[in-house]
C-alpha cells in the first residue's frame, strides 16, 4: 500500500515538473503555415437530410472559421457553392469584417480568433428529384499579411582574414505564421555589399491572389477572380535590414509585387555595407495578399415518401 502511495506521489510530482517547464515560455506566434481554417461544423447539417412534401424543410449549414495564423483578419468573404440555388435556397455568401473577431494568434489570444457562421435556408422540394446529393464547397477569401523576421549575419568584407562575430550563411524557414512566407534566404556577402536572395512560398493548400482588388472578388457578384491578372501575386510591402528600409534596392518585383510560379519565386535585395566588422542583424519582410481556401463536404437530401 505504501509503495502504491509513493508511486502516485511520484507521478503527481513528475507531472507538475514537466508542466512547469513550459509555463513561463514566451511562445513565438509567427511560426507555422496556418492562416484562416475553414471547416464544416460536424453534423450541421447531418450527412443525410430527410425532407417531406407539404412541410417547410429547413436546412442549415454551419461553418467554423479559425485564424490559425499570426495576422488579424479584417476583411473577407465566405462563399458557399456546389449546389443549385433553385433546389437549396440558402444564402451563397457572407462577408466578414474586423468585428467578427478573427484576430491572429498572440500572447493575449494564443488559440487565434474563432467564429461560426450559419447559412440557413430551405429545400425547394418540387425542384429536386427523390434525392439530391451536392458536394458543398465553402470557400473563404480574406486579406492577410505576413511579417517575417530572420536573423542574418552581415560581413562587410568577407575577404579579410580576421576573427568574426558571425559568418554569413543561408537561412531556411518553414513558415512565419501565415500560408505565404519566406522559405529561404540566400546570403551572399561581397566587399561593401551583401546580396540577399529571398524566396517566397505558398506553404498552404489555398490560392494566393493580389490584394489590390480586395477579397470581395471572391463573391458571386464580384465576377470571380480574374486569375490571369491576380492569381499568385503577393505584394512585398517592405524589406528592412535592421531599421533600414531596403525595399528600393530589391529587384524582381513589378510595382512591388511578386508573382509566384508553381507556388514559389524569389527577389534579390542588396544592402550597402560599411566598415569591416561582421555583425548579426534582423532581415524583416512584410507581405500582403489575399488568400483563398476551400473545403468541401457531401450532403444527401432524401425525399421521404
Amino acid at each position, binding site marked *: 500500500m505504501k509503495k502504491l502511495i509513493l508511486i502516485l506521489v511520484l507521478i503527481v510530482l513528475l507531472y507538475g515538473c514537466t508542466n512547469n517547464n513550459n509555463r513561463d515560455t514566451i511562445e513565438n506566434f509567427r511560426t507555422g503555415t496556418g492562416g484562416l481554417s475553414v471547416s464544416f461544423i460536424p453534423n450541421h447539417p*447531418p*450527412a*443525410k437530410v*430527410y425532407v417531406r412534401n407539404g412541410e417547410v424543410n429547413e436546412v442549415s449549414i454551419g461553418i467554423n472559421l479559425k485564424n490559425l495564423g499570426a495576422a488579424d483578419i479584417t476583411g473577407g468573404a465566405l*462563399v458557399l*457553392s*456546389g*449546389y*443549385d440555388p*433553385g*433546389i437549396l435556397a440558402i444564402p451563397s455568401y457572407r462577408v466578414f469584417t474586423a468585428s467578427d473577431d478573427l484576430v491572429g494568434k498572440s500572447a493575449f489570444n494564443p488559440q487565434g480568433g474563432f467564429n461560426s457562421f450559419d447559412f440557413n435556408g430551405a429545400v*425547394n422540394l*418540387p*425542384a*429536386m*428529384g*427523390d*434525392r*439530391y*446529393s*451536392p*458536394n*458543398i*464547397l465553402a*470557400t473563404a477569401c480574406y486579406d492577410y499579411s505576413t511579417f517575417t523576421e530572420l536573423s542574418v549575419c552581415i560581413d562587410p568584407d568577407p575577404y579579410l582574414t580576421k576573427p568574426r562575430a558571425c559568418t554569413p550563411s543561408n537561412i531556411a524557414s518553414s513558415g512565419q505564421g501565415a500560408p505565404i512566407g519566406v522559405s529561404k534566404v540566400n546570403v551572399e556577402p561581397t566587399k561593401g555589399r551583401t546580396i540577399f536572395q529571398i524566396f517566397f512560398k505558398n506553404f498552404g493548400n489555398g*490560392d494566393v491572389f493580389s490584394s489590390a482588388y480586395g477579397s470581395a472578388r471572391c463573391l*458571386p457578384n464580384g*465576377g*470571380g*477572380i480574374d*486569375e490571369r491578372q491576380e*492569381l499568385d501575386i503577393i505584394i512585398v510591402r517592405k524589406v528592412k535590414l535592421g531599421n533600414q528600409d531596403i525595399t528600393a534596392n530589391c529587384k524582381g518585383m513589378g510595382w512591388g509585387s511578386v508573382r509566384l510560379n508553381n507556388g514559389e519565386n524569389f527577389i534579390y535585395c542588396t544592402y550597402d555595407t560599411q566598415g569591416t566588422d561582421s555583425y548579426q542583424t534582423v532581415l524583416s519582410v512584410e507581405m500582403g495578399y489575399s488568400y*483563398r481556401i*476551400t473545403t*468541401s463536404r457531401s450532403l444527401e437530401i*432524401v425525399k*421521404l*415518401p
Partner: protein
Amino acid sequence: MLKILKIFFIAFLLLTLSGCSVISGLFGGGNTNLDIPDIHKGTEGLKMSFEKNQPLSSYKVTDAGTPITITVNLENKGTSVLAEDTTIVVNADKSYIALDNDRSNVVLQGITERYSKGESAKLTFTGMIQPLRLSEDTTIVSVNACYRYSIEGHYSVCIDTDPSNIKTQKKACSSADNNKLGSLGGQGGPVGANKIEVVLNPRLNTLKPQFMVYVKNFGSGRAFDAFASPATLCSSGLTDSSALNIVYVTAKLADKEFKCSPNPIVINPEDENFVICSNDGFSVSTDTASYSSSLIVYMVYDYFDSISQEISLKKVKTTN
C-alpha cells in the same frame, strides 16, 4: 464489501459501454440512416403470365364442346399507376374457342417506396372449346395488354461552368461526373432513357445547358401514342401505324422547365433515338462556380404487350 465492489464494477462497465458508439447508436446518439429504395429503375411495366394449367396445354374436346378457363396473372412491376382504361383482351380463334367475355379492365398501383412489389391481380376468362372437325388440332390463345405508362428518371447532373479547367478554383463537380449518365438501365417502365448527354454550350460569359436524352424501348412490347386511348389501342389501334413508337418527353432541371424536341419522338427500334431538351431563357454565368443540379426526365406513352400459348386439341367421342 464484496457486494459494493460488484455494484461499482457493474456501474463502471455500464458507463464505459455507454461511451461506445454501438451503445450510443442504440440510444440515438449515432448516425442513423433510413432505407429509402430508389424505385425509378428497371425496365418492366405490366408483367403478364398465364396461371398454371389455365389454359392447359392440351384439351380433349367432346362433341358438345369442352369448357376452358384462362387465367392471367398481372403484376405491375413499374412505377406508374395502371389506370381504369388499362385493357386486357383475350384473343382466340372464334371457330375454336367461344369466350363468354374477352376483355376486362384493371387498376393496379405501381411500385412505390413503401410497396416494392407493386400491385398484382388475376383475371379469369371462361368459355367453351368448340367441337372439332378434325381429330386433332391446335390453336393459340393470346392475351394483349394495353396501358398508359409514364416514367420519371431522376439524375444528378453537373453544371460545369469551367469545362476546360481554365480556372484554378476547386470544383464541386466536373463534366466527367456526367459520364455516369452514359449507360442507363431503365427508370421503372418498359420505355425510358438509356443514355443522357449533358451539353454545356458556351456563349459569351454564359453556358446554355442542353440535355440529349436517348429514348429506348427496353421491353418486348410496342410503344404507342399516349393520346390514343389504351382501350382503342387494344381494339383497332394496332393498325394505325402513325401512332406506333411514339413517346412524349419533357424535362426539368431543378425548378426550370426544359422543352424537348422533337416531341413526341418516334423511336426506331433499329436506331439511336434522342430528343434535345433545352430552355431558351436559361443560361448559367461562367462566373458561377460549378454545381450539381437535379434533372428529371418524364416520358409518357401507351404500351402494348402480349403473351400467348399454344393449345393442343383432341377430339373424343362421348358415350351415352
